[in-house]
């Protein structure tokens, strides 16, 4: 089964490219302290707003800090926010979706109306309000993005669970005396996991975008700690004289989100039994 998926995955070049980029970025983020040519927070006011050169590959910012080092360090923020937020959403969304789909009735109604309420709130403004209240830092950002992005997942898992719980193998397991938690997590979950994985992968890209937007607005990662969003904030003030301050972080966001989307779409093709 797994070898079939691997075979299909290898043939899907775009997905493989996406995965390669993600692996590279993850390695870069993990090894950032060692890889940075310069201290990402060291200021050097004599070298402010310099263009890309051999010494500063992506130039310097308004305080003379090396943009490449700051971008590389920012990768850690983006990826960790992406993974942790999606991890939270995955946990909450999958559990609630399984409960709603499996038990039906009032449980289902309660959970799904809650989902409807969550989906009808403009998420970004909710996040802004909560962050303004709790104070902006990276942990709050992770948690709040995670806690606002589960409803779509719940809806999807519920739908899958509704169909899977009526399959004969679930009936058979139930008749064998298998307990309800085991039925949910051992028998049903593996059969609904494919669309969950796809949507989680796409969700990482979304979470990274949200984090960048929050940092751009000053409610995410706080300076001097670098993140792609707050490098862009500085960049917008100098757009007419220092293009490198905006273009490189923007490209980093674009490429990363694109990589996750390609991987997600690829997984969809690979895991879809109909293809």
């Amino acid at each position, binding site marked *: 089964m797994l070898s079939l998926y691997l075979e299909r995955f290898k043939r899907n070049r775009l997905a493989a490219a996406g995965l390669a980029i993600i692996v590279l970025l993850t390695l870069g983020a993990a090894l950032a302290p060692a890889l940075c040519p310069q201290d990402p927070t060291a200021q050097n006011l004599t070298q402010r707003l310099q263009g890309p050169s051999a010494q500063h590959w992506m130039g310097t910012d308004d305080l003379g800090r090396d943009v490449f080092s700051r971008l590389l360090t920012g990768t850690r923020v983006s990826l960790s926010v992406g993974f942790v937020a999606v991890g939270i959403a995955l946990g909450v969304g999958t559990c609630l979706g399984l409960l709603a789909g499996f038990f039906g009735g009032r449980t289902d109604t309660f959970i799904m109306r809650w989902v409807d309420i969550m989906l009808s709130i403009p998420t970004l403004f909710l996040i802004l309000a909560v962050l303004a209240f709790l104070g902006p830092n990276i942990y709050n950002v992770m948690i709040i993005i995670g806690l606002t992005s589960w409803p779509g997942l719940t809806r999807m898992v519920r739908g899958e669970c509704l169909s899977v719980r009526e399959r004969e193998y679930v009936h*058979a397991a139930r008749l064998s005396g298998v307990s309800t938690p085991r039925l949910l997590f051992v028998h049903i979950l593996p059969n609904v996991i494919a669309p969950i994985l796809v949507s989680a992968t796409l969700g990482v890209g979304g979470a990274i975008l949200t984090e960048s937007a929050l940092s751009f607005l000053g409610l995410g990662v706080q300076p001097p700690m670098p993140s792609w969003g707050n490098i862009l904030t500085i960049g917008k003030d100098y757009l007419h004289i220092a293009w490198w301050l905006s273009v490189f972080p923007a490209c980093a966001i674009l490429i990363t989100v694109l990589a996750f989307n390609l991987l997600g779409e690829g997984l969809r093709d690979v895991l879809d039994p109909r293809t």
Partner: protein
Amino acid sequence: MSQTSLLLEGRGLSKAFPIEGGVFRHQVGSVQALRDVSFRISKGETLAVVGGSGCGKSTLARIISGLLPPDAGTLQWDGQSMAGWRRLDRARRIQMIFQDPFASLNPKLSIGTQLREVVRLAGATAAEERGRCEQLLKSVGLSGDALSHYPFQFSGGQRQRIAIARALAMKPALLIADEPLSALDVTIQAHILELLKELKKTYALTVLFISHDLAVVDSFADRVIVLQNGGVVEEGPVDTLLSCPRHAHTRALLDAVPRIPD
């Protein structure tokens, strides 16, 4: 057969399924799947339930197995009510094999995982598990190698054998077989039927055999009940019922058996 003791008795079982419709999905009608069905199964006997499609055979099987609650009626096991039974109480006494062996095994779990969990629930210790699984597979004519494989690696007949092994793991007294042959090739059908006959003997099983194939019923069952539109229309020992059917529906079912001219 008439002298043996009663294992399971159903009295006045009824079940209706609602039909929902309209903008707010309210109930606009219902389908009466079972109406006032009563039956008795004695220990060690094979009771066949026959009827055309949609007559309520599978609904009856699902009610007895506990997958569906009846709207009305009672089930008595050995003279006692089954009302307070927990899932495991039921599993230790009643097991079921399903029609479609391609749907009744979890595609994402290995045969070992699926057998082992039942064997464990049946009370085997960790040390006994593997041996017990292999023994079960052997009793249905498969080797222990099957444990590490996944359902998609087996043919329909093999899967049905695995499903039977899983049902036997609990050492049930009653085995419900819901059209266990109808999804299989004709040659495989004969093998599985032989296997069921053999296992019935070795495990001293009582069998509730649901089928629309009267030839199979003739060779396997002791007694037959005939369902039509959710109600029992005829009941009796297999020999008399099949040789001189009294009800028109039974005759119609008999006439529907394709015969190959000699």
